[in-house]
């Protein structure tokens, strides 16, 4: 598995995609800080970017990588190597290199701009952790889609749709249902709905740090417990873990049974 991981990783390096991605974040970080001159404001802007862009790039990249390396995968399958290690290796190679580009690309400019001395460091590290999680989750989801669809066009279509759904449409439906059912107690519903979408989940995680004062403005015992204590943080982290493990497990499961 490690060998395949290493191979995928270096493959991405050689194809320069990792560098492009890394440089993109590096530039983004520098431009943001240059324009804002204020670390705490840049963190807020960055959050919007991470929540929208990271899942998109991870999805597209995951699907693209899978289809691209399909012939190589088939070659590997002919060798006496466990299927689990082939697919897990590829998955970890792709998501690992994406996550590394993200963390380094954003970490370097912020560190240079005196983040370590600023008290925004915790917000920022949380942001990076959420970004890394999103990368792992969405690459796994993309691999799932690609494994289930032989047709490349279809696979890409589903991948983009998945991103669109989780990033925008889901929140729209969520909002409309909250407004329609506003007569009913909605605390639990709204918190559970947040948990069901990894993008909302990581947003909540960051909100817990950035906008805690607004979140506490709502009168509700459940909200108060969730946002007012560390409870919300641990639950969100836990659910993010589950969100990572489940798609990976399904991917491995699917790959074992698939007839190539």
């Amino acid at each position: 598995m490690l060998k395949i991981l290493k191979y995928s990783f270096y493959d991405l390096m050689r194809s320069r995609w990792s560098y492009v991605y890394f440089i993109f974040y590096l530039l983004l970080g520098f431009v943001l800080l240059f324009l804002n001159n204020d670390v705490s404001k840049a963190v807020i802007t960055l959050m919007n970017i991470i929540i929208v862009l990271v899942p998109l790039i991870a999805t597209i990249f995951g699907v693209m990588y899978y289809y691209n390396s399909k012939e190589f995968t088939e070659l590997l399958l002919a060798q006496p190597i466990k299927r689990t290690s082939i697919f897990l290796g590829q998955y970890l190679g792709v998501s690992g290199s994406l996550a590394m580009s993200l963390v380094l690309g954003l970490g370097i400019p912020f560190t240079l701009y005196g983040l370590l001395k600023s008290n925004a460091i915790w917000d920022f590290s949380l942001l990076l952790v959420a970004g890394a999680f999103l990368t792992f989750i969405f690459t796994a989801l993309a691999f799932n889609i690609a494994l289930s669809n032989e047709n490349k066009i279809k696979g890409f279509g589903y991948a983009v749709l998945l991103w669109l759904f989780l990033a925008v449409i889901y929140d729209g439906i969520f909002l409309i249902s909250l407004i329609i059912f506003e007569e009913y107690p909605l605390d639990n519903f709204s918190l559970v709905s947040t948990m069901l979408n990894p993008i909302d989940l990581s947003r909540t995680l960051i909100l817990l740090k950035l906008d805690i004062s607004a979140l506490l403005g709502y009168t509700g015992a459940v909200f108060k417990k969730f946002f007012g204590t560390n409870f919300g943080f641990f639950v969100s982290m836990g659910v993010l873990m589950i969100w990572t493990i489940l798609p990976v497990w399904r991917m491995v499961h699917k790959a074992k049974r698939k007839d190539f």
Partner: protein
Amino acid sequence: MNVWNKLLLILFMAFGAASHGSTLEICSTCPIKSIKEGIDQAQAYDTLLIKKGTYLEFDIIVDKPLTIIGKDYPVVDGEDQGEIFTVTSDNVTIDGLFIINVGTSYTSDYAAIRVVKSKNFLIQNVVLEKLFFGIYLEKSTDGRVFHNKIIGDAVEEFNSGNGIQLWYCQNVSVENNIVQHVRDGIYLEFSDQIVIKNNISTNNVRYGLHFMFSNDDLYQDNTFENNGAGVAVMFSKKIKMYNNTFKKNWGAASFGMLLKEINDSEIIGNTFEENTVGISIEGSNRINYKENDFVNNGWALKVRGACYSNVFSSNNFLYNSFDVSYNSKLNDNSFSGNYWSNYTGYDLDKNGVGDVPYRPVKLFSYIVNRTPETIVLLRSLFMDIIDFSEKVSPVFTPDNLRDNSPLMKKLQ
């Protein structure tokens, strides 16, 4: 402190020269063993010097113009029996005492020091602990409450009292006090021409500062932090609030400052930081908000209705989740020349003023007003999209509510 000490000395000398009072010492080995005895034996304008020790006394009535000074903080322990000092005479000074264990009662408001219908009083350097009410001024005028420390142990609102309470007072200054863990840190009712300055009121069960029906008062350089419901000011006129700090008042019914029926006032140079609501405004007219900093609040301003002719100018709105929220479509308040960290416009003519007006009310804040649970969608892409469409063509938010001259740089 040194300057104050000197001033005090001069004051005492002046008093001394005017009245030729003598000094009576009180201690466990002196002829006079208790404060009550001391007051009985003293003549008007005498000084009682209480030496170090513990005095188990309560219901001490000061009915002569006396100067009561504690040396090395003698402890006056009320043993939870009732009120400790009641001042009924003019020209009384209480200085340097450590007063503990004021009685709790549900029918009368026992205080550590109560001043009733007196003039020219001075209460300073007093430390109060385990109290019900702290310093209670009642129908008194021309006094000073200076440099006291009040530390309560209040948990519930119904069985606790206020730190410094002024009721029907005039012309009193409350300065450099520290008030913690009581119900309301500083409470004023029907008190006019009061100066509240340099006080630090923190961790109180209800309000850091609370006043009602009190006009022409000045609040300056105070700090109100982490109070149950922040600061509430109601039904008053001609209030001046300068350079105060309101910090970390979190909770559903918590505000940096709650203004209700406040008219013709000035709120200048204050800092509102990390509150759930910076200022909540209701039925308040003709107020001038200038040079205030609103930093990291949930809502910087929550305007609830019946607010007319208020002017918001030269304020900094920095990183608030919501800058302004309105619950109606009407607007009669003006916003101009503020700095908004959420402003995304440009300044082509480089005059420091943005060329596009800023709309501080977002559609999302309107939605949250309606359905509070939607707050979990804060900062989501979907919300940004509908906020943007509302910005382009306002439907739900007041059309004329905008800052036509938003600043490009933060005001220092």
